[in-house]
């Protein structure tokens, strides 16, 4: 069975990710997609190369005095002990009920700070730390389970981490990125015999109107 990632972020979305201007929750979905997708890893490297080139093209003349620069230089080179990277707690595997999932490395630190799992009829979710306008969570859809038809007032982005789901527009396997706006009503189902774990971002309606749609709307068509 082919497990190739089929639903990618667009180049425009990757560019925003690479220059650091995406909302962090959305950026996290893109980062997690990259963990699954060699194709987009290459594009990311290409975009960074290009952005770095633009960065070097900036005029380098400086109004900062030489003394100030020299002082900064000395500050840096005299700080002779490299900072110890603080070890952040990390969970590489998480358990939900009887299931266990291996997490992509970029989610392991956040997963260690997850909230409790909440369970409703075959669907479980737990929140990960995120900023207020957004809900970032892990979502488990048990085998042979249908997510009730829902309308989201904001933007809903989902990345499959394990297992697979289908909806009206297709089938999604690990690494696939699904973006839905309020115009979409969809009914994702897990028709397989394995549980499906997803990473999900829901944005609040307010934020959606002013922020995310501006750049997502033109991209929407690439995502179904």
């Amino acid at each position, binding site marked *: 069975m082919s497990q190739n990632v089929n639903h990618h972020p*667009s*180049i425009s979305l990757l560019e925003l*990710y*690479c*220059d*650091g201007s995406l909302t*962090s*929750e959305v*950026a*996290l979905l893109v*980062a997690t997609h*990259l*963990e699954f997708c*060699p*194709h987009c*890893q*290459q*594009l990311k*490297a*290409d*975009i*960074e*190369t*290009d*952005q*770095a*080139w633009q*960065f*070097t*093209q*900036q*005029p*380098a*003349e*400086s109004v*900062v005095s030489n003394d100030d*620069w020299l002082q*900064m*230089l000395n*500050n*840096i*080179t005299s*700080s*002779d002990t*490299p*900072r110890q990277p603080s070890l*952040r707690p990390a969970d590489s595997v998480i358990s939900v009920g009887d299931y266990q999932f291996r997490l992509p*490395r*970029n*989610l392991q*630190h*956040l997963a260690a*700070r997850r909230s409790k799992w909440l369970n409703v009829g075959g669907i479980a979710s737990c929140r990960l*730390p*995120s*900023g207020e306008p957004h809900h*970032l969570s892990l979502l488990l859809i048990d085998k042979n389970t249908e997510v009730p038809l829902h309308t989201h007032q904001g933007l809903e982005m989902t990345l499959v981490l394990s297992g697979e789901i289908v909806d009206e527009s297709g089938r999604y396997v690990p690494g696939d990125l699904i973006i839905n706006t309020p115009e979409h009503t969809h009914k994702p189902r897990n028709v397989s015999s394995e549980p499906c774990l997803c990473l999900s971002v829901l944005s609040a309606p307010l934020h959606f109107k002013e922020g995310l749609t501006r750049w997502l709307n033109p991209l929407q*068509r*690439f995502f179904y």
Partner: protein
Amino acid sequence: MVITAVSGHHVLQTASDGVSQMTAGPVQTEQQNPQWEQALALVAVKRDKQAFSDLFAHFAPRLRAFGLRMFGNEQQAMEMVQDTLLNVWNKAALFDPSRGCATTWIYTIARNVRFDMLRKKQQRKDEISADDLWPDGEHPDIEGEHSQQWDLLLIAEKLAPHFAALPPAQRVVVEKIYLEELSHQQVAELLGIPLGTVKSRLRLALERLREALNESER
């Protein structure tokens, strides 16, 4: 082999006006010089202060300009410069030249520093950090993956209308390589950009064309 199929007049026409723009300016060659990669190696191996001050002299003013554009104020811009270069000083050993040039590495450090500075300003310390978004270390090796399928795609005449929509810098690279049959190295020399940048722009342009093609078929 691709050339004959693509050289329809439409493509040639739309591609040509970007070229004059791109080649008119002064030729920039500094990035082709491996001196920054060597300097990073010296810093990594023996904490070479001379090599570092060379890096500092080159990158600090550029980082400041970048920071000013991003933050709009001098104090934060300079904080970003210092944090970025401190990371360069301390983490030079993590630089892997096989994954990209020194400039790209330093640029991504600056991006991450900036991201975390903005996050702290918004008092979101406990949330998603740059380390979660751009983890150190790299993905599995991915070189040379799909060039063939791109050649096939380019043959398609229906790509022609999308050519004009490419960013000029990418369009000129595609044109030089596919229409004028220059090698990647020749294009790098002609445009005064690093070889890696030529390859990057080519891949990005082809990806854009693919996106446009998918879109028009929908």
